[in-house]
């Protein structure tokens, strides 16, 4: 039964993709392209492109995309539920333990060692997003390949956020509009 197959495949993806985002990609490919042949390799590449261009985690996007293609909206639902089920159980369990035992000395000490690392990991994700924005997919990071319009947009956004305390979502939308505007002017 196709719904059950979709559910089980994405359950595995949800259960074994640690570290988020791109870490899930090879797993998805293994299930969707190699094991079941639900997508061809070029369809899979398209899926990754779509995922980069739209909101939402790659795993959820894939579940929806593959599910719809193979078995319509019910298929998409089966795949998506399979994909998030492991998260729901495991995260809720850890959150429950955290809220119950967070006053323990050991846990406090673990958390105080983890907090600065979390800041660092968020910073690192920010750096890779900026590298991909400023230099696109070009292999090397060099002065001449820099897309200065995006650097300028970045600077304006930082100013709007820090100085004028503008709502981040509006800042992001404005950044998109500015880029589209630049390219219209630039021809």
């Amino acid at each position: 039964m196709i719904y059950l197959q979709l559910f089980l495949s994405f359950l595995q993806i949800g259960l074994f993709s640690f570290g988020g985002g791109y870490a899930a990609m090879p797993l998805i490919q293994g299930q969707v392209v190699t094991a079941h042949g639900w997508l061809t390799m070029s369809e899979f590449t398209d899926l990754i492109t779509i995922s980069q261009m739209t909101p939402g985690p790659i795993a959820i996007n894939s579940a929806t995309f593959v599910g719809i293609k193979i078995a319509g909206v019910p298929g998409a639902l089966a795949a998506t539920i399979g994909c998030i089920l492991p998260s729901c159980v495991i995260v809720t369990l850890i959150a429950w333990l955290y809220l119950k035992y967070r006053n323990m000395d050991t846990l406090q000490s673990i958390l105080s060692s983890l907090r600065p690392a979390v800041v660092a990991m968020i910073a690192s994700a920010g750096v890779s997003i900026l590298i991909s924005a400023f230099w696109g997919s070009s292999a090397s990071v060099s002065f001449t390949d820099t897309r200065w319009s995006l650097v300028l947009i970045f600077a304006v956004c930082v100013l709007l956020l820090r100085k004028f305390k503008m709502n981040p979502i509006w800042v992001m939308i404005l950044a998109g509009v500015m880029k589209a505007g630049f390219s219209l002017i630039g021809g």
Partner: protein
Amino acid sequence: MKNRKEVLIKLFISTLYLSAFTFGGGYVIVTLMKKKFVDEYHWIEENEMLDLVAIAQSAPGAIAVNGAIVVGYKLAGLIGALTSIIATIIPPFVIISLISVFYAAFRSNVVISELLEGMQAGVGAVIASVVYEMGAGVAQSRSLPSILIMILSFIAACVFQVNVIYIVLVCIGLGIVRTVLHNRKEAGK
């Protein structure tokens, strides 16, 4: 905290709204959640938010989904987790369903691709701003171990591309060692 129903409605609407704009991966939604729930609603403290992010980070699955679950659970228990997960799933589900129908047209549209490129720079700015605030918080704690952990983790993640799972595990180990050492010191007194 205000009555449960109001919290759930606000949680649903804000998670839905955040999820619709999480271009660029899980850390974006996490930074936006921090802005919303810590800075705007004051439902969660900053340190607690970092703990919740660490939980989202160390469990399997997408960070955005895990983040929604921990925040929802913390605010309103299982119902809260369910509320925020449904709200997080709806936008990508609807958008991908539509796109899978119109993919060819969507992909070749120049304005859309320019718009999305620009938004990347905007997302980078949002993350930079939040990291600046949180990093300043760590620096002001004047705790040498914390500052060292922050710098070393950044180098590991950004320069050496170490899988975040290992960074989380090392920090957990460090935390345990620090408690043990601390307890020995206390016992020795």
